[in-house]
């Protein structure tokens, strides 16, 4: 369970550019929740992820993940509990290293001086073959030769090779072409369902925000303005969401990409 209580973050404090990116935000994520997050540009969606993953420390508040207080835990230490994917497929993997080397680094369990062994190789081959991308025969090729969709799929494997307590997906299909995006999304759903992962996914696609997962959150100006699940969510349409946004925030949703893909 992830319990976020009253976190705030101001960027460039005490300057003219000061921006309150997270405003006294609280959120409880139950085990097994698959929450989709939507909101206008600059609403604080990615900032929320950065706060959870530890890219920066929040100015105030607490973050507790499965009874561990991670509020001031360094990013690399939290990483053993939190898997994360970015929009940019390049960010999750080391381009100059081979697929198998990338997976070895993510998998761990070999100790500092352990090397890739046959059983690990077999395991990697098996999980790669589940992607249906033919990557199991290219394990010795550098990551940099792969397409964006393939890299993102491998990043997903790396993030979930040791099932994390929490998986953060930050528009991880937005930079891919539609076919690759659909494919990666399908793989994501498979893995999340198989390992019963607790997952937060930012998306700009309102249709899929309502379709995927079991709960939807809408953010605006660093706060959560809507949190729906269950039958209320099942009955919702994209138009309802837009209407709700206008009703609560007092203005139209101004995310072009979001409107184009509704």
């Amino acid at each position, binding site marked *: 369970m992830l319990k976020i209580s009253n976190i705030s973050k101001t960027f460039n404090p005490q300057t003219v550019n000061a921006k309150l990116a997270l405003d006294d935000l609280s959120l409880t994520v139950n085990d097994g929740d698959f929450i989709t997050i939507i909101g206008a540009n600059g609403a604080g969606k990615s900032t929320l992820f950065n706060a959870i993953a530890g890219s920066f420390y929040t100015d105030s508040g607490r973050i507790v993940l499965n009874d561990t207080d991670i509020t001031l835990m360094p990013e*690399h230490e939290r990483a053993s509990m939190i*898997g994360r994917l970015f929009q940019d497929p390049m960010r*999750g*993997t080391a381009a100059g290293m081979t697929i198998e080397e990338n997976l070895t680094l*993510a998998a761990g369990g070999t100790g500092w001086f*352990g*090397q890739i062994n046959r059983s690990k190789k077999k395991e990697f081959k098996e999980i790669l073959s589940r992607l249906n991308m033919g990557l199991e025969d290219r394990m010795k090729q550098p990551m940099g030769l792969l397409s964006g969709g393939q890299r993102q799929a491998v990043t997903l494997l*790396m993030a979930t090779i040791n099932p994390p307590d929490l998986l953060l997906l930050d528009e991880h299909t937005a930079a891919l072409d539609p076919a690759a995006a659909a494919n990666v999304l399908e793989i994501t759903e498979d893995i999340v369902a198989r390992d019963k992962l607790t997952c937060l996914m930012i998306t700009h696609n309102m249709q899929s925000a309502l379709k995927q997962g079991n709960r939807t959150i809408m953010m605006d100006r660093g706060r959560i303005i809507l949190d729906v699940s269950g039958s209320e969510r099942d009955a919702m349409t994209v138009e309802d969401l837009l209407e709700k946004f206008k009703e609560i925030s007092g203005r139209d949703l101004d995310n072009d990409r979001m409107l184009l893909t509704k």
Partner: protein
Amino acid sequence: MNLADMGPLLQTALELGLFGSLTVLALYLSYTMLNVCDLSTDGCFTMGACVGAAVAISGHPFLSIIAAMLAGVISGFIVAFLQTKMGIESLLAGIIVNTAWYSVNVAIMGNKSLLNMNKTATVFTLLKEKLQGTAFAGQYKLIIAFLAVAIVVLFLSFFLKTRLGLAIRATGNNPDMVRSSSINPAFTTIVGLCVANAFTGLSGCLMAQSQKSVNIDIGQGMVTVALASLLIGQVMFVKGGITVKAIGAVVGAFIFRLVYTIALRFNMPAYMLKLVSAVIVIIAISGPYFKKKIPLAVRKHNLKKINRKEDANA
């Protein structure tokens, strides 16, 4: 120059190239893998030479080599600590340590800027005695140099495939990814620089002991010379895994020394070494940059011509 000269010439180049290649292998780890340009290399090289000489003179030929490598580890640790834990820019950290080591190195040599090892027992003199009268009598330097390089290359090809080695390689490639593998990039940078500078210290120690003297200036410009060698090797060995590239670094060091030694025979003054290495580094690094610029320049030129023609017609 006649052909009879070539034998000793080649041997000198090979010896110097192999001793220097240990520093090149250090940069292969820090510059190529970690993406850190370690400017403390000069000072660390000299420190290896000074510590090695001081310990050898006090009567411990084998311990001197270990001591020199240990000095390198400490030097690397301090540089890495400054840049990962004390918020000092990586280049600046190297320069600061390099400056500090001048004083430290003079102190190690006992307030002298020159140490003589003419009557000192070193691994070289020991092997020379052992080989007296055999067919390899003249090759004692070469044998030690080759052994040292072989051990370091073998170590690197093993080390860089371990999880720690992979993490070090990934640190230069994508530190975000290292962090998301629950590894602290600061830690991998520290380990990487410690290992790299152990090689630099070894390089300085062997170089000094083979020529039986240490001068406080022995390491000056070493980082540029080593970088030039590294880049020559990288151009020659574009394909291949990490072991092949490591061997490439050694070959690069040899070729650099060979060209330099031949140039000396053609009466190029010895002081030109540093300038030549600087020019090689400039060409090797800016080459790919200009290669990208040339097609654009050609296109610009052609467009200008077309525009001028159209203006004339109008």
